[in-house]
């Protein structure tokens, strides 16, 4: 494939069927390095299924996924995490009984080196041994990652830092979403997929989240965003992709997409004036 170096993610004809329903229908997409693309569309349009296909939690029935020019179609989620793809989940899948610190440390799992030697066959046993013995290199790695987690949590102001040792199940809904994003950042992702990061957040919290995503984009992170809050989508996105019934029905800069009659019919059927309220 004649991929350009700047193309991070490239989907071709990606398709997933559930029985008679085609949840994702021949979707093409190209995401350049440092770009932020938002995927919008009514509920059930196939956005989350598309995320699952890209991150390996589901396998496509047809089509390909390329990441930095490499075919990653159908690879396991573990492999893709190691490749630098991180995601958050729509319904918030934090590890309930783990502390905030431990949740975010799991995000850094693929970056563990000292404690996880890449030796074939006996690697897992060495990992067990190193975890029990904890030589200086392992301790130093753990310490460094803990400091890093604190730095990541500090990006959320005073939302998470005071709760760093609390179990995640005791957090508010919004804070769980923040923990998810912190966990994704701990992976040092090259591609970040955010599935409705502001779901269930009030306007102040949404504005905070929008600020954070803008910051991440400013730092050069490549982001694929599913979001229902159109104002946020318009402000952040380089391009917007609209999905309906599994198909990509429009693509382009936000201003252009919002005027597309197909989009208005499928998604914004009730007119653009209500876009602020469409935050649901």
């Amino acid at each position, binding site marked *: 494939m004649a991929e350009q170096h700047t193309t991070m993610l490239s989907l071709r004809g990606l398709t997933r069927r559930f029985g008679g329903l085609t949840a994702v229908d021949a979707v093409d997409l190209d995401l350049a390095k440092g770009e932020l693309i938002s995927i919008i569309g009514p509920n059930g349009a196939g956005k989350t299924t598309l995320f699952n296909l890209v*991150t*390996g*939690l589901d396998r496509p029935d047809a089509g390909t996924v390329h990441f930095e020019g490499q075919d990653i179609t159908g690879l*396991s*989620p*573990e492999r893709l*995490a*190691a490749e630098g793809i*991180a*995601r958050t*989940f729509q319904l918030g*899948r*934090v*590890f*309930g*009984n*783990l502390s905030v610190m*431990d*949740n975010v*440390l*799991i*995000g850094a*799992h*693929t970056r*563990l080196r000292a*404690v996880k030697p890449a030796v074939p066959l006996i690697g*897992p*046993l060495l*990992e*067990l041994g190193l*975890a*029990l013995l*904890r030589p200086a290199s392992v301790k130093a790695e*753990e310490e460094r990652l803990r400091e890093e987690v604190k730095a990541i949590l500090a990006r959320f102001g005073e939302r998470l830092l005071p709760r760093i040792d609390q*179990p995640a*199940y005791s957090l508010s809904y919004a804070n769980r979403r923040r923990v998810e994003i912190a*966990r994704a950042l701990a*992976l040092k992702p090259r591609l970040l997929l955010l599935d409705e990061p502001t779901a269930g957040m009030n306007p102040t919290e949404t504005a905070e989240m929008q600020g954070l995503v803008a910051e991440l984009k400013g730092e050069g992170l490549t982001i694929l965003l599913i979001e229902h809050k159109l104002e946020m989508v318009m402000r952040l996105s380089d391009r917007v992709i609209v999905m309906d019934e599994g198909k990509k029905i429009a693509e382009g800069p936000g201003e252009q997409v919002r005027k597309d009659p197909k989009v208005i019919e499928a998604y914004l059927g009730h007119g653009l004036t209500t876009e602020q309220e469409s935050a649901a």
Partner: protein
Amino acid sequence: MSSWLDYTINGLIVGNVYALVAVGLALIFGVSRLINFAQGSIYLVGAYIGWVAVVQLHTPLPLTIILVAAAAALVGLIIERFGLRPLQNSVRIAPLLATIGISFVLDQLVMLTFSPNPRALPSQLPDVRFQIGGGTIGPLDLLIAGVGITSALLLFVFLRYSKLGWAVRATAQDRDAAMQMGVDVNRVNQAVFGIAAALGGVSGLLVGMYYNQIDTAMSLQATLKGVVAEVVGGAGNVPGAVIGSLLLGLVESYGVAVFGTSYRNLFAFLLLVVVLVLRPNGLFASARQAPPEPLTGTFIAPSRPVRIPRWVLLVATGIFAVLPFFPVSFYVLQTLINAWLLGMLALSLTLVAGTIGQVSLGHAALLAIGAYTSALLSLTFAVPVGLAIIGGGLMSAALGTALISPSFRLRGHYVSIATLAIGEIVSLVILNWESVTRGPIGISGIPPLSLFGYELVSPISIYWFSFIVMVVLALLQGRLLGSHLGRSFRAIRDDDIAARAYGLSLNRYKSLAFIFGGFAAGVSGGIAAHLYSYINHETFNTQQSILALTVVILGGLGNVVGAILGAVALVGLPEVFRIAAEYRILIYGIVLLLLVRFRPQGLLGTM
């Protein structure tokens, strides 16, 4: 040729009996996503009620069947109302554990009422055989086939044409939607438990008549066979359960024909493991369908563990360490030695069931592997006992992990079923692999514990030895939990999908948990072998697996201190209260039920 027809008929008849159990399991799984481990106990109750009716009341056959069905249904309704309904909103693990507890309580009650000795249950039908083709068939065969077919037809009519039957099917498809449409889900549950219990009870009666013998060991076997048939047919799939049962009956019958009677169960459990691994949704489900299982994360009760100050632990360890210096009786030491051995097993199980969330019901198999390895190493190869025990631990870690690995891709209740089956397989292999394990005779004359050439024969030295080994294992496990592995294990337990998305390989970490846990269990089994000096395939049985699970839940899942506390409590308290041995398992069952109902997070909380 003719004998093949006989084996086929026998297989179909036995399959019919399994079907009566399996259909009940499928109905219950359908509406409440629960594998009812108490189904075999109801079958047992049915058999004994049948015995009372036939032998003492001399009821005619139709009345016997009606009586058994009604009484069993009543037991089913009681289980549903008082055992399971209070748990409707609790964690997913609660009803599973409750049915295990109920099963132990029912079995023990039957055993205490009727004594554990087998009884003859005479068939009330004339003993004649009809020739068909090259084989023969008796009136009892026809009765079993008739009851099976009639029940299937009645059930079909009920589910298809009655209003309550519609409600059952609606609830099975989508419980929440059914509730919103005004279906009384409690009534549906009642109906399903009543029907399942009636079928199970009648099945027990028929099996008792078929073999002309009933005993209390029937219960677990029936549950296991029913679960195998149900899972083979696809959990929750009622017609699938019937076909699965017939298939299981045939596989067993042909297996017996070729290899002999002692292989009967081995075939059943191998069939289960093969189906679970290749087609976890049963033979009739489409391959890519999501399994009808609870998502993880809700499986274990969230709680804040009780923090015990370090000095309290140090003081407690110190007290137990110097205990033999005080004038305590050998009886107390003996009891505590048992507690330390159980503590090691509980450490192993709390890591596997609690920390990484794989609720194993076959953990005694790891004891057995460790015990046999250590015994054979010291007997056959004259390996010093201390090294042999470590060898037992390593063998348990390696072989146990390899055997359990087929269950790594399963989730939730399926893990429990698979580990239960794998545990049974280990015990059956020990029974049948005579050239190595000496088969049913067992291994006797195992050398006593010794260390660096000194025999440990005094209770004090055995006490110290087992205590020190347990403390070392506990410290190691504590250290493990504090490492990135502890964090990774718990993440996999809480949400395996999110864990995978962050690069945690389930196979790798489940293996590591079983390797570590297998070592502790194997060491415990190894020490036990040298203490007992005689072991056989029944020394380490399912009751011990369940006892260990009760200990672990009592202490708090994943909780290292809790596992030891639970072991001391469950071994010690019956001694303190001088409870007779035959009541102990009853007490354990009741403890399990009370815990699940009132303190699912255990004494010290889930870690």
